[in-house]
């Protein structure tokens, strides 16, 4: 006897709107299905109407947690298109912010993992310390979440001595705290018992299902864009790729805590070796017709932007492949044969960023199976038609 249970889109365990439909047999999940699209805003289409500079701010607002990742990935691509080379100091500051973002994102995740595991004081502790990173980011960029520090050809704000010193001081505190969390997270018996063995994803499955980021690395595959295909200044920064081989949520926790440590080292290196010079170069308004793929290691995994230009000051096509999207297939695998009670934990373990992943697909005509390019206005009409004139299907049909 199997039941279907709908979870979401608005559900206490999921912070963002996403629907999961799990088929259960008793307590055990036999199948899972994801319902997406609640957070789809049409960013890609919108990007085609804005110019290169405006798009930086739009890209930032794809996601609030990895805002710098999307902006940097986009800016790197556009710089390649425009054939400009940002100055060294600009790149250093850009990478500095992206490492700080990784720290804040991983701390955030650690807290959420603690919360989902029922360890709320851990959550509060971690989030208290996360405020230190937020303060650093605020001193650098003036903002807590959307830093708006990137610009095409470099960064917008410089760093002075005092700020660098402040960051180094705060880093010491963070390092100590993270060591404490490492100890707590990996030795506290009840916490470990809750996480170990949950959401198993074998190495072969992880590779086959194209998992990315800490999810992949926790299955023992050392893959990291920063090492494999170094962008910006990562080829001269010493750091290690962290892996774990337990293939479960515990492993993902360990990988993230280790990455925190690596990030602290990177930040320290960047600040101590910050070169002098300008922070940005002037960028042209237009880009030659060309196309480019830009890769970036976001806190959640590999982020890919495909950008096509047609000689005007607007992109012709912008495609975003966010890390969470790549991890969905693996999540389904992890959910299968697990317990219902583990759903939030497993979900949280990939660090889902639903708003990142809500990218639209090409419209495929049902009858002819043909893809077609549509304009914004016709898309809008289509959308109105679908949402307003169609009989609404009831969402939660209780199977009793």
């Amino acid at each position, binding site marked *: 006897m199997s039941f279907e249970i709908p979870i979401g*889109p*608005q*559900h*206490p*365990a999921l*912070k*963002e*709107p996403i629907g999961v439909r799990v088929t259960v047999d008793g307590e055990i999940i036999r199948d899972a299905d994801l319902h997406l*699209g*609640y*957070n*789809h*805003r*049409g*960013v890609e*289409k*919108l990007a085609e*109407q804005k110019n290169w500079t405006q798009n930086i*701010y*739009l890209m930032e*607002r*794809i*996601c*609030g*947690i990895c*805002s710098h990742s999307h902006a940097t990935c986009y800016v790197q691509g556009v710089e390649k298109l425009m054939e400009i080379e940002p100055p060294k100091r600009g790149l250093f500051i850009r990478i500095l912010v992206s490492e700080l973002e990784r720290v804040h994102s991983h701390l*955030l995740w650690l*807290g959420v993992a603690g919360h989902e595991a029922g360890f709320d004081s851990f*959550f*509060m502790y971690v*989030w*208290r310390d*996360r*405020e230190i990173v*937020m303060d650093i980011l605020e001193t650098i960029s003036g903002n*807590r*979440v*959307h830093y708006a520090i990137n610009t095409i050809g470099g960064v917008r704000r410089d760093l002075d001595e005092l700020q660098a010193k402040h960051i180094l001081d705060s880093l010491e505190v963070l390092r100590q705290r993270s060591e404490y969390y490492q100890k707590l997270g990996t030795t506290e018996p009840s916490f470990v018992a809750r996480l170990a063995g949950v959401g198993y994803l074998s190495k072969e499955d992880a590779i086959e299902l194209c998992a990315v980021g800490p999810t992949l690395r926790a299955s023992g595959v050392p893959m990291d864009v920063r090492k494999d295909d170094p962008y910006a200044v990562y080829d001269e920064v010493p750091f290690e790729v962290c892996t774990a081989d337990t293939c479960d949520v515990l492993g993902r926790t360990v990988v993230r805590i280790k990455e925190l440590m690596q990030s602290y080292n990177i930040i320290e290196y960047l600040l101590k070796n910050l070169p002098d010079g300008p922070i940005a170069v002037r960028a042209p308004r237009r880009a030659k017709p060309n196309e480019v793929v830009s890769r970036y290691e976001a806190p959640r995994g590999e982020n890919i932007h495909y950008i096509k230009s047609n000689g005007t000051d607007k992109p012709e096509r912008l495609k975003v492949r966010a890390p969470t999207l790549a991890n969905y297939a693996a999540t389904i695998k992890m959910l299968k044969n697990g317990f219902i009670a583990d759903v939030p934990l497993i979900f949280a373990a990939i660090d889902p*960023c*639903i*708003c*990142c992943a809500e990218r639209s697909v090409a419209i495929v005509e049902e009858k002819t199976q043909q893809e077609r390019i549509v304009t*914004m206005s016709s*898309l*809008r009409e*289509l*959308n109105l038609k679908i*949402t307003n004139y169609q009989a*609404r299907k009831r*969402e939660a049909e209780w199977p009793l």
Partner: protein
Amino acid sequence: MLQKLTQWSRLKSPWILHLNTGACNACDIEVVAALTPRFDVERFGILLEGTPRHADVIICTGPATRQMKDRLIRVYEQTPDPKFVMAVGACAMSGCVYRGAYNIIGGIDQLIPVDVYVPGCPIRPDALIEGVVKLLDKIKQGAK
């Protein structure tokens, strides 16, 4: 007497439901950050609730995507009276950068009545706290 008591308890412990209607997540983490030790809205008796049926205040982030439209209205209807809505972030107020996109309604006040608007993209937790205090003031004045 009973009315006084309910009014008092409503003011002292407004329970909130956080609803994401297509936000970019930044407002959401700032809402959560407001609950954590640095800002700690719990000292006003504010508690984050999981279900709309327990909530007094709906904190709404995001520009209301068409997909979320029906759900938003349903959540609003499920919340017991009296209910209050806070539109948090530029998105929930008007649509922010997404304004004009095909899937965006643009501002939740197009769908449900809103009591307090908190501007910012994203809001700072301090702004959220101020918004809550304003809302409490409003409730208090409404009672008089």
